[in-house]
């Protein structure tokens, strides 16, 4: 399975008459894209903003981040399987993507009740009670809160007013499909052009002298709370499948094509991150040189009983072993029981003789009084910390707020520092983009 990834760098974005990519400049016809967002009549208001790192801008209500790309040669379509898109296997042929840019989905849902707003975007905990939400929901484009990957991406921000008259499933579908219409349109502009940069990924041929590695990302499933049942569109999807399942084995190039996308919780933008996983990219590049990259085992979490969690962990470990893995890199995407399930996979892999590294965010250390991880098994011995998700200095006042139809003046003001992951969810780094460690490693 070979994928040629052509990259079209985007150094600047501007509004223009015509939607086009030309020599690093992405031009956007604002009215055309707004028309695409609102086309189906289920959304009443949307806005489009452009921002770049260094701007005095605060993003609020950011729900997900997407890469602009399209399949230009070979089978399938990027972001396969979701919302009725083809499930034909991707990861082959040629894909064109834009680099240095991402599309943000910002959903203004302030007018909804806590219950309406909570699901699907915020998860179950906030279903029943009104919680203080302001502190956790922003990204600054400059200052101490402008961390990777937001410090290296030009953003095209689609702010959409959440429709109140749809049920959860329909609201979720309306918002996400609107973004995909924009993505597909923008990617058309580079479909027929020659990519300035190109890289070929192919992990088919293994070198028997090199150790085999697998990547096991854990993605929470919303099946247990999805009102539409296990076939809900809601949450992180593998070819559109969101339900709890035994691990799915994917080729790394499938992930690069967006076969795994979506996000479980508020403020955990993940689609761009999953397509651009540094682990997937780097292991693919090292394939045949220093290791064999045997594949990605996408493990679902949020099993509801302890025996289920233990069984799921064991299945992932046995699959890794059968693939010939000598080593595994394991990540998680949420705290709580999802972290327990992730740690169980590490334990199961180690018991199968697979040297396993856990890449994870740390818990808030509560000023030195709390342990860095929720659970600790003796088998969990190799850990890479991506920090606590905290920023220890205030977030300066900003000139502009993006993500709200009628932003509160409070958003413009200086905001207090966030100590550890209890306060901020946006700053979580589950895939190793930054070096936001509480202590340098």
């Amino acid at each position, binding site marked *: 399975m070979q994928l040629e990834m052509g990259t079209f760098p985007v150094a600047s974005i501007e509004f223009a008459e015509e939607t086009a990519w030309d020599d690093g400049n992405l031009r956007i016809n604002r009215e055309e894209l707004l028309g695409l967002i609102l086309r189906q009549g289920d959304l009443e208001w949307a806005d489009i903003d452009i921002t770049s790192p260094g701007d005095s801008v605060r993003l609020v209500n950011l729900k997900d981040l997407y890469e602009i790309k399209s399949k230009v040669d070979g089978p399938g379509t990027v972001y396969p399987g979701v919302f009725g898109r083809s499930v034909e296997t991707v990861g082959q042929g040629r894909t064109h993507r834009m680099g240095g840019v991402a599309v943000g989905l910002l959903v203004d849902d302030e007018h909804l009740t806590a219950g309406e707003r909570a699901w699907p975007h915020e998860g179950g905990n906030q279903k029943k009670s009104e919680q203080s939400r302001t502190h956790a929901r922003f990204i600054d484009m400059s200052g101490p809160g402008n961390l990777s990957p937001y410090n290296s991406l030009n953003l095209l921000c689609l702010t959409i007013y959440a429709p109140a008259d749809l049920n959860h499933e329909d609201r979720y579908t309306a918002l996400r499909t609107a973004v995909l219409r924009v993505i597909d349109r923008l990617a058309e502009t580079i479909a027929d052009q020659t990519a300035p940069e190109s890289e070929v990924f192919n992990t088919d041929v293994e070198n028997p002298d090199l150790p085999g590695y697998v990547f096991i990302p854990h993605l929470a499933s919303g099946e247990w709370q999805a009102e539409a049942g296990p076939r809900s569109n809601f949450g992180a999807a593998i070819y559109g499948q969101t339900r709890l399942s035994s691990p799915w084995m994917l080729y790394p190039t499938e992930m690069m094509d967006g076969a795994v996308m979506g996000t479980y919780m508020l403020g955990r933008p993940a689609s761009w991150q999953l397509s651009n996983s540094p682990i997937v990219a780097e292991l693919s590049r090292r394939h045949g040189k220093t290791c064999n990259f045997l594949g990605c085992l996408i493990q679902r979490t949020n099993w*509801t009983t302890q025996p289920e969690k233990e069984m799921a962990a064991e299945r992932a470990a046995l699959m890794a072993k059968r693939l010939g893995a000598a080593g595994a890199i394991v990540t998680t995407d949420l705290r709580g029981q999802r972290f327990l399930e992730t740690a169980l996979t590490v334990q199961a892999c180690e018991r199968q003789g697979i040297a396993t590294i856990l890449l994870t965010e740390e818990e808030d250390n509560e000023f030195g009084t709390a342990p860095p991880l929720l659970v600790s098994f003796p088998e969990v011995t190799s850990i890479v910390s991506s920090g606590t998700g905290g920023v220890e200095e205030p977030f300066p006042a900003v000139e502009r707020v993006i993500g709200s139809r009628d932003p509160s003046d409070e958003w413009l003001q200086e905001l207090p520092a966030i100590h550890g992951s209890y306060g901020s969810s946006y700053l979580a780094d589950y895939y190793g983009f930054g070096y936001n460690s509480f202590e340098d490693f």
Partner: protein
Amino acid sequence: MIPFAAKAGRIVRGMRVEHVCGDPNLSEENDARLARRIVDTALRALQTEVDGPTVFDPAEETASAT
């Protein structure tokens, strides 16, 4: 495994993450009976000396008069 990880002295085995004190698969009557058994187990746990993480299983609890 979990007792070790949780580092708690007394642990009462529940059912599911979102139903710690009952089982929605049971009839209302049996669910209430199970909930009672779990609470009884917790009370027994509190009255039992332990010298390390110890699991108390509601399945081992004898039915109490309601």
